[in-house]
C-alpha cells in the first residue's frame, strides 16, 4: 500500500527539492552576472560574486529545524541582494553604456 502522500515514503525529498531550488537560484545569479559581464564588467563581477553566496545559503536546508528564525534572515538576504542587483541595473541603464570604473558605480550604493 502506498501512503496517501508519496512523500511519507521519504520526507528527505522535499529538502532535496529545496536544495535544488537554491542551486537554480544561484545559477540564475550566475547567468545574470555573466550576461552583464561584457558590457558592464564591474557590475557583472558584483552579481557573479552572489552565486557562491546563494549557493552557500542553500547548503543549510537540512539543518533548519532547530533555528526557524535563521530561515527568515536568509530569505531576507536573498531579497536584499535581488533589490541591490535591480538598483545596479537601473544605474547601469540610466547612466549609459560603460561605467567601467568602480568610482562611477559607487554613488549607487550611497
Amino acid at each position, binding site marked *: 500500500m502506498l501512503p496517501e502522500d508519496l512523500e511519507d515514503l521519504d520526507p528527505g525529498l522535499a529538502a532535496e527539492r529545496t536544495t535544488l*531550488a537554491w542551486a537554480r537560484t544561484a545559477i540564475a545569479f550566475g547567468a545574470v552576472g555573466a550576461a552583464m559581464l561584457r558590457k558592464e564588467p564591474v557590475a557583472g563581477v558584483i552579481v557573479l560574486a552572489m552565486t557562491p553566496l546563494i549557493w552557500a545559503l542553500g547548503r543549510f536546508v537540512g539543518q533548519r529545524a532547530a533555528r526557524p528564525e535563521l530561515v527568515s534572515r536568509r530569505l531576507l538576504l536573498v531579497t536584499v541582494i535581488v533589490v541591490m542587483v*535591480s538598483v545596479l541595473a537601473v544605474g547601469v541603464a540610466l547612466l549609459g553604456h560603460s561605467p567601467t570604473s568602480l568610482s562611477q558605480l559607487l554613488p549607487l550604493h550611497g
Partner: protein
Amino acid sequence: MVERRAARDGRDDRDPGSSHAATEPDARFTLANERTFLAWNRTALALVVAGLGIVQLLPPFPGVPWGRHVLGVPLIVLGAAVSVTSYREWRQNQAALRRGAPLPRSVLPRVLAVTIAGIAALSAAVLLVSAVR
C-alpha cells in the same frame, strides 16, 4: 501533519493571531513555501535581466531615443518589487501555517500579468511612434 492538526483543533482557537498559540508547521510546508519564494526571486532576476537587455542590447528605436529606457527600466523596477513582495508573502504564509489558518491569496500573479500586459502595450506604442516619425 500531526502538529498542524493539533494547532487547528486545539489551543489556538481563542486567539489565532498570538504567537502563544502558534506551533512550528510541518517541515514540508515550510520547505514548499521557501521554494515558492525562491521561484519568485528567479522570476525577479529574469525581469531585471530582460530590462537590462532591452536598454543595452537593442539598437535604438529610430525617432524615439528614450524608447528603450521606457520599456527596460519599469521591468527592472518590477523585478525589485516582485522580490520584496515575495518575501512579504513568504512571511504571511509562514505565519498562516503556524496558526493552521488558510494561506492568504498571493497578489504576485496579478501584479506580474498586469505589468507585462502594460509593457506589451507600451512596446506597441513605442513601435508605432517610431514608425510614424
